[in-house]
């Protein structure tokens, strides 16, 4: 066992982790630990853009961005945190540009922006250009740029180290335990401050846009250490995933004029969101697709619809909508322009579907996409240990694994890339500042015991069960019963199934008994995390007897502000039982009202 000591430890090297590491390392001895090489992190998969009211080509204001985010969250987002994020957004995006990020440009040479779902001009209600983009690989550019800055600033990395436990002493963060994947050796990292930035957990669902690495490690680890998880019932289904594969087709396609068409050739979003149509919020569109399919309007009677970005379709509907360019000229596109703005999307469709989006519509279905819930924090990344906002000294979280909450019940597109740069930075700053006035906490006598026990279990199982089967069964039931539409009966079924799978999981025995790159063992541990989070998600969802944002119940179809304008806090107690408590939503300027697009 090797031990290391750092003032600040960042777990995760995606956008949130790198931003935290960059800022913390300016004043504190810092290391970033990541199970993947930093540039493999899922931030690199983000396509469409990062939101900020720069107003490059038309009028926009941080207050509009704030209101849109509050509305998009179905009023579950905490308004103080949302306002903070949207105010910080403008400087944060300029800072990325100063770090060299190659944004696309307007004809005047400014950062180019495109419309995105739910982002509007608050006066006219029409879509506003707020998503700052670099083609359809904005996340790739953010990840690369931040990693490049870390190299420039000599930030210390432990690449391909899997963090498997959080150490706490006297109620304060004391460090983490990690496995060096290349050797199988356990390392103990002692620290004054620990920042979790481990990303999401979309691998719980069958059809997903999420990477294999999205196994919710951070949330699962903290739950095991008695820290609650907030709003886990809210998980976003993105309306446009590639049929069957779930690979994401960015909302930027609709920002560039693409429209959704059902099996009858109708532009169905007119029915569901008369003002912004195809640029409504994601939850609204995913439900619309589901209902179209249910009413027999899928393509060829199947469970998919078309996303159409062929120039003739775009131009036809843009003319009907009276859509104009910022200079007042009519909105007209060519195939070449589409290709230059969405090169990766065109490539994905050609490779995986054999479809050319310039000449053919793309078959799409909703795909599991984003965790609104996670480790509860305030706007400085400080982790809350209860519903009374009590802080755990030295523990921080940022990015998709955290719940600030700025996304509430439904995240707006472009707000996650914003979340990771704003809250990554502030978590880094706070953690460094905290570490200056704090001492190292003593490590427990046998710091790796808890982690060791979990891993040894996988070598001792009786082998009656296969981990791959268990994963498949979890994904299927979660997609069927804990997806876009939910009901008490379905969720109960999912809960029973997940509990059965958790029992069966105890019989899994990994085949690989070696030390070096034992991915068999690590993947088994990750599956355990997914199962834990699937259970917490389902229990949190069953309790919430209303529909709000991404949580949509057929048996409770309306939002219930009287009883449910509150955040769920879920704990797993020593016996494995899940306990729920609630915290009121912070409302500053915007009183909840009906949400119409």
């Amino acid at each position, binding site marked *: 066992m090797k031990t290391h000591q750092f003032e600040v430890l960042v777990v995760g090297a995606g956008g949130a982790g790198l931003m935290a590491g960059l800022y913390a390392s300016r004043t504190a001895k810092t290391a970033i630990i990541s199970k993947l090489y930093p540039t493999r992190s899922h931030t690199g998969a983000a396509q469409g853009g990062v939101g900020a009211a720069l107003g490059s080509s038309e009028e926009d204001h941080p207050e509009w961005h704030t209101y849109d985010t509050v509305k998009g969250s179905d009023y579950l987002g905490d308004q103080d945190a949302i306002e903070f994020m949207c105010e910080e957004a403008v400087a944060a995006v300029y800072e990325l540009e100063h770090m060299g990020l190659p944004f696309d*440009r307007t004809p005047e040479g400014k950062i180019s922006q495109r419309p995105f779902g739910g982002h509007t001009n608050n006066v006219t209600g029409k879509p506003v250009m707020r998503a700052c983009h*670099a083609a359809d690989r904005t996340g790739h550019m953010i990840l690369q740029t931040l990693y490049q800055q870390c190299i420039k600033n000599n930030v210390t990395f432990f690449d391909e180290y899997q963090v498997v436990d959080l150490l706490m002493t006297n109620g304060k963060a004391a460090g983490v335990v990690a496995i060096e994947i290349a050797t199988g050796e356990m390392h103990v990292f002692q620290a004054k401050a620990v920042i979790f930035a481990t990303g999401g957990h979309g691998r719980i669902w069958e059809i997903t846009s999420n990477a*294999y690495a999205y196994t919710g490690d951070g949330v699962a680890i903290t739950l095991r250490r008695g820290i609650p998880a907030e709003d886990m019932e809210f998980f976003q289904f993105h309306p446009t995933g590639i049929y069957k594969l779930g690979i994401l087709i960015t909302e930027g396609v609709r920002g560039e004029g693409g429209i959704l068409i059902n099996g009858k050739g109708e532009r169905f979003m007119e029915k569901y969101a008369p003002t912004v149509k195809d640029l409504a919020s994601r939850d609204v569109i995913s439900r619309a697709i589901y209902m179209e399919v249910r009413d027999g309007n899928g393509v060829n009677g199947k469970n998919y619809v078309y996303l159409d970005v062929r120039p003739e379709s775009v131009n036809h509907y843009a003319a009907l909508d009276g859509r104009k360019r910022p200079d007042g000229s009519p909105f007209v596109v060519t195939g070449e322009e589409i290709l230059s703005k969405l090169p990766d999307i065109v490539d994905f469709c050609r490779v995986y579907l054999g479809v050319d989006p310039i000449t053919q519509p793309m078959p799409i279905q909703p795909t599991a996409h984003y965790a609104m819930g996670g480790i509860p924090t305030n706007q400085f990344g400080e982790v809350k240990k209860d519903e009374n906002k009590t802080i755990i000294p030295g523990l921080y979280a940022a990015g998709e694994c955290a719940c600030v909450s700025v996304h509430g019940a439904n995240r707006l597109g472009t707000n996650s890339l914003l979340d990771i740069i704003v809250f990554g930075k502030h978590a880094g700053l706070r953690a460094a500042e905290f570490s200056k006035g704090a001492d190292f906490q003593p490590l427990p006598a046998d710091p790796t015991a808890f982690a060791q026990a979990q891993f040894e279990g996988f070598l001792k199982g009786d082998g009656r069960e296969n981990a791959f089967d268990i994963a498949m069964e979890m994904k299927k039931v979660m997609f069927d019963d804990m997806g876009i539409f939910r009901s008490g009966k379905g969720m109960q079924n999912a809960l029973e199934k997940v509990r059965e799978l958790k029992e069966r999981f105890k019989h899994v025995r990994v085949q690989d008994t070696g030390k070096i790159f034992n991915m068999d063992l690590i993947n088994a541990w990750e599956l355990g995390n997914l199962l834990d989070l699937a259970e917490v998600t389902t229990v949190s969802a069953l309790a919430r007897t209303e529909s709000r944002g991404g949580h949509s119940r057929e048996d409770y179809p309306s939002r219930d502000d009287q009883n449910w304008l509150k955040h769920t806090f879920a704990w797993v107690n020593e016996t494995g039982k899940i306990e729920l408590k609630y915290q009121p939503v912070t409302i500053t300027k915007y009183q909840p009202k009906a949400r119409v697009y």
Partner: protein
Amino acid sequence: MQVTIKVFRYNPEKDKKPHYETYQLEADPTDRVLDLLEKVKGYKDGTLSFRRSCAHGVCGSDAMRINGSNKLACKALVHDFGAKITVEPILGLRVIKDLIVDMEPFFDNFRKVLPYFINDDPAPEKERYQSQEDRERFDDTTKCILCAACTTSCPSFWASDEYLGPSAIVNAHRFIFDSRDQGAAQRLKIMNEIMGVSRCHTVFNCTLACPREIQITKAIGEVKKALMTGSLE
């Protein structure tokens, strides 16, 4: 369809030398080779080890040799290869286990080319302006995902991993031709060193191997030209 997949296997804790294992699988023609590897791992042999994450060609984890050419397993579909598929680790980097190679020499080379934005002028309050033409100048080389498919297809890199290799040069190009950057002279000096661009003999393997379709040989050519003419035009 039935697919026979032959996989390079090496476990340093057990094997004296590498060998191949063959597995029969039922597959869809549109399955990814990565899906096959997952199935082998899930049902046939849990000890099979490889890296992967995004599963759609953007994270750069799973470059491997598939029927002899460098591909991302997640972007290689069964119907492109037929019923017999051979999967091996990329060449020129030490094999650690099965399909996993030691990426450190590759990242070391990346770090040598000053792969970060250099501009010491005080930043303006808003963005630094850049024309669409200037932005377009280096667009192609911003696509690199550091998967190493290009570098490990290059005979010069096989001859010596001290050679910076195509990927590192691509990343140097990304900054050399960025009108906002001021580090071109320093980087060109590195490009001119003995293990720099002169080792490129325009074999074109790299360009064919790139899963992002970056025109790598062209980019290297532009760096060579900048060295010869002393101009970035």
